């Protein structure tokens, strides 16, 4: 006869409520792991999806995911000429926050290298990729825009032609993809007044310039748009992405580019490692510590619950001892209940989590290794927390059944 089952059946309502409580606590522990995985996943999502072999970034910087990186646009042409390079593309990436339809809209803008890259690699769930080099965007659904919606960014209005799922930046903002030119137009957009002031300032600097004193006609260029001034560089890009041709020696390509004095290079893996060790590491440690604390709290709560459940059964345990039940029967009664409580709590945590976590503002990713690890921890907690109850039960004298 399974005494643990019989006892649970007898006070099922209380046991079920206790299991739900334990389950909710374990769901939080489970969720903390999922939040970390979500942060890690979001941080590396773009690097993993974009599909590149070598990142060329500003010299002595760690690349656009770690800090500001600026490289000239013509670096794309230089990289393309290296033997073994299949493609080289600009990488433009920045975060903006704008007003749209009366609400604040925060998003990360990713520039696609038109026409090489039209966003075919993006995980579209609706709509299509870009078909023209201006005024179209692909937006992640977390941004809150719908297919066909028009959104004014800077001076231009963009139409949402595609919707992606789970394209999130490392800071948790949804990503929108436009062409590189549009991304730069959004990034470097300035108001008309700012443009006029800059032109005036440029003219004023020209008047004081020795060069203009020698060539007064240069002053005529000062109030023209910046992109018409040959001496001013075009807006720079964050990095250049290189894909090595099949069969080519990636190390040889890397060695050639690494020899250039104005850039640094990273492999896809080293960019990923930099992100995880840099941006994500503190979050990981923070969440890890909270997880450890929560696990400890869960263990203490379970121990107290099991101790209370044991105290409620003290008379029955004394009676069992009086009629000759060996300690293994008493031990089995408490241990089985502890394990059942732990397992039921874990199952409740899992199913509650499946319902609740998708509603969180950032992704909560439950991976099998974490779930198995937590299941192991729950089993250990269940056994450990039952020790207090077992200790109490083994000290009960059969006399207590008589008194």
């Amino acid at each position, binding site marked *: 006869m399974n005494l643990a089952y019989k006892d649970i059946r007898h*006070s099922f309502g209380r046991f079920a409520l206790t299991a739900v409580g334990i389950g909710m606590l374990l769901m939080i522990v489970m969720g903390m792991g999922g939040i970390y995985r979500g942060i890690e996943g979001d941080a590396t999502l773009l690097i993993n999806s974009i599909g590149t072999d070598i990142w060329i970034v500003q010299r002595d910087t760690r690349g656009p995911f770690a800090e500001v990186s600026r490289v000239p646009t013509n670096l794309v042409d230089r990289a393309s000429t290296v033997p073994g390079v299949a493609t080289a593309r600009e990488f433009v990436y920045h975060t903006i926050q704008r007003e749209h339809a009366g609400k604040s809209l925060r998003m990360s803008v990713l520039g696609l290298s038109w026409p090489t890259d039209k966003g075919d690699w993006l995980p579209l769930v609706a709509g299509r990729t870009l078909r023209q080099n201006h005024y179209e965007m692909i937006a992640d659904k977390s941004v809150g825009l719908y297919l066909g919606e028009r959104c004014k960014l800077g001076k231009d209005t963009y139409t949402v032609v595609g919707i992606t799922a789970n394209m999130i930046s490392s800071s948790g903002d949804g990503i929108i993809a436009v062409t590189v030119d549009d991304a730069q137009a959004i990034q470097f957009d300035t108001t008309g007044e700012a443009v006029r002031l800059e032109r005036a300032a440029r003219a004023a600097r020209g008047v004081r310039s020795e060069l203009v004193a020698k060539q007064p006609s240069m002053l005529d260029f000062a109030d023209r748009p910046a992109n018409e001034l040959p001496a001013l560089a075009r807006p720079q890009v964050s990095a250049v992405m290189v894909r090595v041709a099949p069969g080519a020696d990636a190390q040889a390509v890397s060695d050639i580019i690494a020899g250039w004095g104005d850039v640094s290079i990273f492999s896809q893996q080293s960019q990923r490692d930099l992100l995880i060790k840099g941006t994500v590491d503190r979050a990981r440690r923070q969440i890890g510590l909270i997880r450890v604390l929560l696990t400890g709290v869960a263990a203490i709560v379970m121990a107290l619950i099991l101790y209370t459940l044991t105290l409620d059964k003290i008379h029955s345990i004394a009676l069992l001892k*009086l*009629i000759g039940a060996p300690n293994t029967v008493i031990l089995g009664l408490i241990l089985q209940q502890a394990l059942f409580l732990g397992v039921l709590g874990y199952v409740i945590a899992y199913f509650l989590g499946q319902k609740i976590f998708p509603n969180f503002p950032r992704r909560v990713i439950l991976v099998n290794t974490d779930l198995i690890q937590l299941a192991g921890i729950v089993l250990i907690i269940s056994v450990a927390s039952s020790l207090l109850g077992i200790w109490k039960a083994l000290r009960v004298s059969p006399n207590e059944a008589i008194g």
Partner: protein
Amino acid sequence: MHDGFAIETHSLTKVYGSGNTEVIAMHDATMTVRRGEVAALLGPSGSGKSTFLTAIGLINPPTSGSVKIDGQLVMDGPASQTNLRTFRRKHIGFVFQKSNLIPFLSAIENVQIAMELNGTTPRSARKQAMELLDYLGVADRADGLPTALSGGQQQRVAVARALANKPSIILADEPTAALDSHRGQQVMELFARVAHEQGAGVVVVTHDHRSLSVFDTIYEMEDGLMRKGEKAEGG
């Protein structure tokens, strides 16, 4: 009457504390109960009856003296001569003032568990438990939880559990105290029937002088001293 002694105690003494706080709860208590014999143990509160019962029930070891059950020496002074919990399981049945049933087990399960602890298979234990409940007239309440049974029914189930492993002795501590006189008389007669039919030695601690007629022997205790009393005539 069956042959042989179910219980033999010799000079059982129990002392609590020491020095100024020493209390002698039981002194030189000697009792013999044959198989099939029903003995009553009378005495006022605090006279040492429960101390004696727990000593022969192998729950509370005596300070000195010996206990033999079914001819086997099990306690020699405070030292046990065998595994007491196993011995209790196989040889002793208990019935208390309150029925003391396990609240989360049904009537039949309360009887069944005692048999299963003794190694009987669940199926066989259930069958035998049902037979016992039938023997005691509570088979129709077999699946009821203790809280759904009347006091008399609970006490009958407790008796069934005490009989579960065909014990050599049954120890009952004021088993009728919570029952009305009619039910009390029925329970006492039940003990007599069980003793006579199954050959168990029964010791019943009681204050209930109305049912003394069912006992074969009467012992009295006062201030820790035990003496064999006169058998009362009638109830």
